[in-house]
C-alpha cells in the first residue's frame, strides 16, 4: 500500500526533533510508559506482527502524521480489539465494558525479564526452493506492488541494486498481514544513493534494504 506510513524520502519535514526526543525510558511521559507496558503484556488472539503493522498503516492519514508514536499504538490496539470483537465501539466511548472478567495474573519483574529473554523470536522458515539470487548479483525491484501490506518502500521501487547477503527464508509480511504463514528468501540489497535519489545524492553513499524474493527481478 502506498500509504502515509511510507515516509522514506518524503520531503518537506523540518529539523529532526532531537531536543526533547532524547529522553530515556525512565523519563518519558507516564502514558507513554504505560502504553509500552500494555504493548508488552497484552496478547490479542491471532494478531501477527504484520497485521499489527498494517493496522497502524490504516490509521487516518492526518492522525498518522500528527499523533505521538505511542498514541498510534493506542489507536491500533483499540482497532485490533474491536476487530477481534473483544470490545465494542460503545465500550470505547464509555471507557468501560461495564463488567469485569477474572483479572489477569501480574508478572513480577523477574517474570518480565525472563519473558524479554524468551522473546528473541526467529522469523526464519524452512524452504525447499533454492534462492533465485546470489550475493553480488544485480537485481531490480518491482515498479508496482500488488499487496495491501508490503515492505518494499515506494522510494525503492523499480530501482537496480546489488544482493549483499542472503538470509535464508523468512516469513513474508504481505502474507502475514492476511494471517497466512508463508516464507520466501530474504536478502539485504544495496542501492547506490544516486540510483535512488538522482544526481543530488553523494555517490559515496548507499542505502541497504532487507527485501524478499517476490519483490525482486533479475536486473
Amino acid at each position, binding site marked *: 500500500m502506498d500509504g502515509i506510513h*511510507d*515516509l*522514506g*524520502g518524503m*520531503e518537506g*519535514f523540518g*529539523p529532526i*526533533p*532531537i531536543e526533547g*526526543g532524547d529522553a*530515556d525510558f*525512565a523519563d518519558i511521559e507516564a*502514558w507513554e510508559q504505560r502504553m509500552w*507496558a*500494555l504493548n*508488552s503484556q*497484552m496478547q490479542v*488472539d491471532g*494478531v501477527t506482527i504484520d497485521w499489527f*503493522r498494517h493496522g*497502524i498503516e*490504516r490509521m487516518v492519514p492526518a492522525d498518522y502524521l500528527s499523533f*505521538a*508514536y505511542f*498514541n498510534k499504538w*493506542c*489507536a491500533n490496539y483499540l*482497532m485490533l*480489539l474491536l*476487530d*477481534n470483537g*473483544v470490545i465494542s*465501539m460503545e465500550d*470505547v466511548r464509555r*471507557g468501560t465494558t461495564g*463488567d469485569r*472478567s*477474572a483479572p*489477569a495474573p501480574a508478572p513480577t519483574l523477574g517474570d518480565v525479564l525472563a519473558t*524479554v529473554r*524468551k*522473546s*528473541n523470536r526467529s*522469523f526464519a522458515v524452512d524452504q525447499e526452493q533454492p534462492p533465485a539470487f546470489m550475493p553480488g548479483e544485480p537485481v531490480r525491484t518491482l515498479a508496482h506492488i500488488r499487496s*495491501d501490506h508490503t*515492505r518494499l*518502500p515506494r*522510494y525503492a521501487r523499480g530501482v537496480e541494486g546489488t544482493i549483499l547477503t542472503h*538470509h535464508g527464508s523468512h516469513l513474508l509480511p504481505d502474507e502475514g498481514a*492476511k*494471517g497466512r504463514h508463508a516464507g520466501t528468501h530474504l536478502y*539485504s540489497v544495496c542501492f547506490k544513493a544516486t540510483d*535512488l535519489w538522482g544526481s543530488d545524492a*553523494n555517490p*559515496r*553513499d*548507499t*542505502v*541497504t534494504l*532487507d527485501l524478499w524474493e517476490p519483490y525482486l527481478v533479475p536486473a
Partner: protein
Amino acid sequence: MPSFDSEKAAELHRELHTHLPSDPALRVKTLESLAVERGLVSPDGLDAWIEAYSEHVGPKRGAQVVARSWTDPEFRQRLLADASQAIKEFGFEGSATGHLKAVENTETEHNLIVCTLCSCYPFSILGLSPAWYKSVEYRARAVREPRKVLAEFGVDLPDSVGVRVWDSTAELRYLVIPQRPAGTEDWNEDRLAAIVSRNSMIGTDRDLRAEAG
C-alpha cells in the same frame, strides 16, 4: 480472531478518530481500563514492565557489547558473524533481536540505522528507541539526506567517508559498532562501555571521546 480485512481496519480507525478524545493520556487510560476488564493485562504487571525497561533493559546493554568487541577480537568476530548468538553470552537476547546484525564503522565508512516504514529497533539491547528515531522527520530524511541529518546531530562527515544507511524493512535489526577512540588503550571493559553513547549504536553519533569516561 482478526478479520485481516484492511478496509475494515481503516473504517474502525475512522470511527475511533471520530469518537475518541484527543488527549493521548486519556486514550491510553481507556485502553488500559478495557484491557484490564477483559483480563488481558494487570496494573501490577504493567508496573513490572515499566520497571524492567527503566532499570534493566536499556542502551547500557549495547554499550557493554560494543566495549567487549573493542577488547576481545574473537568476540568481535562472533558478533559480526552472528550478533543474535553473540549477545546471548551476556544474556541480552530478547525482543526484536532474534535476527541481529552488527555493522562496523571504519575510517572510510559510517553506518546509520533507520526504519522508514515503521520504527523497528533492537529493544533488548538498546531499550526503548528515542522519540526522534520514531519521528516522521527522521524516518523521511535519513535515507534521502543522511549527511544533513547527521549534521543536525553534530556529526560532520568529510566526503572521504561514505554513509551506509540501513533501512530495517524486515525482521533484521541493526547495531552499529562505533570506532574505539584513541587514548583508551588501557581502559577496561566497564570504563569503555561508559563512553559508548546510545546514538553511536544507531549511527547518529560518531566520534566517541575518551574524556567522557
